């Protein structure tokens, strides 16, 4: 897997870990985590398509 996707998935995990302690802002942590999962997937697919070219 490419480094960028790993970085984004790592950021998603960090945000998910914040959800239980975020009280009124848990939705912010969860939304940012979801965005990073999407970015990670996008980056992984991008790297995969580049390798195939």
């Amino acid at each position: 897997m490419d480094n960028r996707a790993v970085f984004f998935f790592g950021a998603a995990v960090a945000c998910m870990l914040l959800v239980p302690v975020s009280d009124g802002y848990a939705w912010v942590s969860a939304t940012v985590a979801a965005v990073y999962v999407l970015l990670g997937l996008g980056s992984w697919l991008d790297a995969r398509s580049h390798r195939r070219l």
Partner: protein
Amino acid sequence: MELSVILVIAVALAFDYVNGFHDAANSIATVVSTRVLSPRIAVLWAAFFNFAAFLVFGDAVAATIANDVVTQDVLSIGVIFAGLVGAILWDLITFWFGLPTSSSHALVGGMAGAAVAKAGFGVLITEGLRKIGIFIVLSPLIGLAMGLIITLTIFWVFHRNRNVERLNRGFRTGQLASAAAFSLGHGANDAQKTMGIILALLIASDHAAPDASTPLWVVLAAHTAIGLGTLTGGWRIVKTMGSKITRLQPVGGVAAESGAAITLFATSAAGIPVSTTHTITGAIVGVGAARRLSAVRWGVAGRVVWAWVLTIPGAFGISWLTFLLVDLLS
């Protein structure tokens, strides 16, 4: 008003001045490094919008700083003075090393350190500190995601455009608007922190009721101080932000500043004191990462992150010692 209160208000405004001076780089690093504006015009541009922020935003962040860091009963002139000294010294130390650390977190650490020196750890408000702590992690990540998404959107919208020179000219003009928006967000979030400290001081010295809103003269004084600080801004950090983390083109500057400005507008409206420094650094990394992860100089970014981690403990320690010294002398 007693002389001691006036003196501490002057120190608070000095902190605001140093904040503008230290954080000027955040607002102007990208416009200067992409050569859209000369350094002299860039600081004037940023200072104007720093000052104008008081017309646009409320005082939700000021209320968080005044009420949610330490309990009201522990706040005294000595505690506020020691807290400010700790924050100013930490800002100057990191300025010397060219590190873009957060003046906001230095202030939070400073206030906490001085209050703990006076009355122990029981005076810290866990809820408020937790909110600030969570956004220490979230604000650079939100800035990074915003910078990256805006960059990708711009690339997607303009990918058929072959006239690169004309496109670059357009983005150079666009950077004026994005730098103005970021300076507005910076003025709103950062000047409010000093407003919060002065409000806490006025409450502690019985010059304002515990539920009072921020007086207009405090709002104007805080925005003037941060504007003046930006006007005399520091160049060491401009270099780190503008070229050491990743090389920026006008299109990247627009994306980074817009992403950071959106994050600051949202958090200012919600009353969350985030670091403008962390947000713009995250956004710049996001712009670099849109190309490829190796476009970001991770060694420099790592050094910056370490400075962030050390900011609250560093300012806490200096303020703690300062309070003990003030207490001993008085």
